[in-house]
């Protein structure tokens, strides 16, 4: 109050300039600015660009051609109109050679209706793109089965949460696969699965089973890759739960013990509720890991055999960016679908975090 009453100080405060007066509210934004800038340029803007490209037919080299929702209709098998190459249009002349520059625009396919004698837009029947369907269901398999990493990680964490000689070494050994690159994990597992020399078939042979060519069998290959992915993901969940277990209140455990709780009931009613934050983080990273399952597939099967292990991200890459992929628009449409699937999970995560924060207040 004294400051406001002092006219001299009020005057200096006014003279200090606009920035000084707003320092408190501006500084955080200044610190955030580089992050916001990069996030916008590399994440936010490309999302809108992808959506924009998905409404075009484009080989990544020439001109984009507007085809509306055609890519989505093909992907999802919605009956509708079809875009075809129309009459060439002269758009200009080459200043050097004088040759005409011709563009072929995409137009809606029409046909003459014999009854009315008028050109009518053709409606074609479509089935859902089978590769898309396979990729989508593989994504679902990944999402569900990848969650097995959570109980497995919890189990190992409970097992390792004790004090014996050398426990740090055991913990590091269990954590080790997470440190490995996904490419290395993929290679190691593809050798493990090799149909003749592989360790797996050696083991099966001991029990008189097999031989089994997991990565060569379209019905098993996806499960084989998920199993490989679970190895590092389990280690990740284990570390999250181990840190969570450190924070478990020993007094509550003591109290529960006095009340006669032990075993499963102890775990379910006393330990797990205290591990909720760890469970939440493990869930988030596992879901994101499942949706990012690109490198393992690329290394282990390259999407094969006959495309049975593709997921949406791999299919998108194949259609638009790989050796034979020249369909940027179609690839972008797949990416947009994948984006909305992810968005569903992200919204759920944000909502539950917001709810927790509100509850804590």
């Amino acid at each position: 109050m004294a400051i406001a009453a002092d006219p001299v100080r009020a005057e200096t405060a006014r003279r200090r300039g606009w920035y000084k007066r707003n320092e408190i509210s501006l500084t955080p934004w200044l610190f955030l600015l580089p992050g916001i800038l990069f996030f916008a340029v590399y994440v936010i803007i490309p999302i809108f660009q992808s959506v924009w490209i998905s409404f075009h037919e484009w080989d990544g080299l020439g001109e984009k051609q507007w085809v509306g929702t055609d890519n989505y209709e093909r992907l999802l098998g919605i009956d509708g109109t079809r875009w075809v190459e129309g009459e060439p249009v002269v758009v200009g002349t080459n200043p050097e050679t004088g040759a005409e520059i011709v563009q072929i625009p995409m137009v809606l396919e029409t046909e003459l209706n014999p009854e009315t004698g008028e050109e009518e837009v053709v409606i074609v029947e479509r089935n859902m793109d089978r590769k898309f369907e396979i990729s989508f269901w593989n994504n679902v398999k990944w999402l569900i089965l990848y969650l097995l990493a959570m109980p497995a990680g919890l189990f190992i964490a409970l097992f390792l949460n004790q004090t014996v000689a050398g426990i740090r070494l055991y913990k590091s050994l269990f954590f080790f696969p997470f440190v490995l690159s996904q490419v290395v994990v993929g290679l190691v597992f593809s050798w493990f699965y090799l149909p003749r020399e592989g360790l797996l078939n050696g083991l099966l042979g001991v029990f008189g089973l097999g031989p089994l060519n997991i990565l060569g069998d379209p019905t098993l290959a996806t499960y084989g890759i998920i199993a490989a992915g679970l190895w590092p993901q389990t280690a990740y969940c284990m570390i999250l739960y181990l840190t969570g277990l450190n924070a478990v209140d020993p007094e509550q455990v003591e109290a529960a013990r006095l009340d006669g709780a032990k075993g499963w009931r102890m775990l379910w009613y006393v330990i797990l509720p205290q591990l909720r934050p760890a469970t939440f983080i493990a869930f988030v990273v596992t879901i994101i890991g499942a949706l990012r399952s690109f490198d393992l597939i690329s290394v282990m099967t390259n999407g094969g055999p006959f495309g049975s292990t593709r997921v949406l991200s791999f299919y998108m890459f194949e259609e638009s960016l790989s050796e034979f992929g020249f369909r940027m628009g179609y690839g972008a449409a797949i990416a947009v679908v994948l984006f909305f699937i992810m968005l569903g999970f992200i919204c759920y995560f944000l909502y539950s975090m917001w709810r927790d924060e509100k509850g804590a207040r």
Partner: protein
Amino acid sequence: MHSILKASAAALALGAIAVPATAEDLSGTLRIISDMSNPAPRAVMEGLAAEFDALHPDLSVELEIVDREAWKTQIRNALSANPPDVVNWYAANRMLPYVNANLFMDVSDLWAEPEFEALASTKGAMTINDAQWGVPYTYYQWGVYYRADIYEELGLEEPATWDEEIANCQAILDSGRKCYTIGSKFLWTAGGWFDYINSRTNGYDFHMALARGEIEWTDERVRQTFANWRQLIDMGAFIDDHQTYSWQEALPFILEGEAAAYLMGNFAVAAMRDGGLTDDQLDFYQFPVINPDVDFAEDAPTDTFHIASGAQNVEAAKEFLRFVTSADVQSRINGGDALGQLPVNANASVSDDKFIQQGFDMLSNNAGGGVMQFFDRDFPAEMASVGMEGLQEFMVFPDNLEDILLRLEDARQRIY
């Protein structure tokens, strides 16, 4: 930054020497991006660049070598932003996207020069829309590489007809071996089998019409091709689990004598020699006749040089193309100690390597039907990728053929 530095260093050097430049002499910088990244081709390419650089004192040649597999996707960016003058690529339909997007320069004027008549055999593969878009520097034959010692042990001869082929295969199977090794994980190896069986069954013209999308995949003649192929599959001629192996991972089967032959390109010879096979153990035969009414057509993929349409130094680039196609250079770069492949220039001399000689003889005298570039170069990119996936599935589950053909036909109608 690198290129700017190099260019200015070259400019400085030129200023210091101060050689009076004649009107014809090339000057400036020639930028080449090459995909010849394997050890032997890399040495060849570096030698070429150095030699061309030395030939033209005022010209500085900048060479950048990119990994061969990576180049297949990088070429798009390389050609559209700050394009180099000369790039490597492949013949036939593999050029199409870049020709359509005006990223390759029309070099028909080079092909009109009398020296280029010696390259006539590949002119068709370099032609799109009645113009030529690049020049070839090497090609190699495909065919059946087989274990001569196993054939001798079983008393077999190189088969000339399909019946002999089947009989041989039965004898090999009876001896507890497989007839053919193949690794179809990356799909294209199955394309080779389709190329051969289809062109031997229905002829070169039919095969190319199929590649151009003029024939339905559900056509009776295409089915006949698959029926012939199926004879081998049903016999168990191919190794088990080939969908899990790359072509290199399928090599041990022939090296260890578990399979007797490999349908492959000539580049596999080096790998098989490295694997310990001597020239007495390894031999080559042309894929046998299936339908006696059609002439032999052979897979002989051609690797090429192109000028980017955004090239800065077009004169130097064209001179470089003349240089690499000249008989002398073609003889040297394709020699047994260099690429170990076939020169395209008819006046070039062919290495005396046993397999190169056989391949040269086969392609010169016994490929009257025509020369195919290979499945993934003759068919448009999208059709090739859908197609090869179908071929792999057919090799594992031949009963799915009907479904596969319908799928390919569906793709054909959409793509062309």
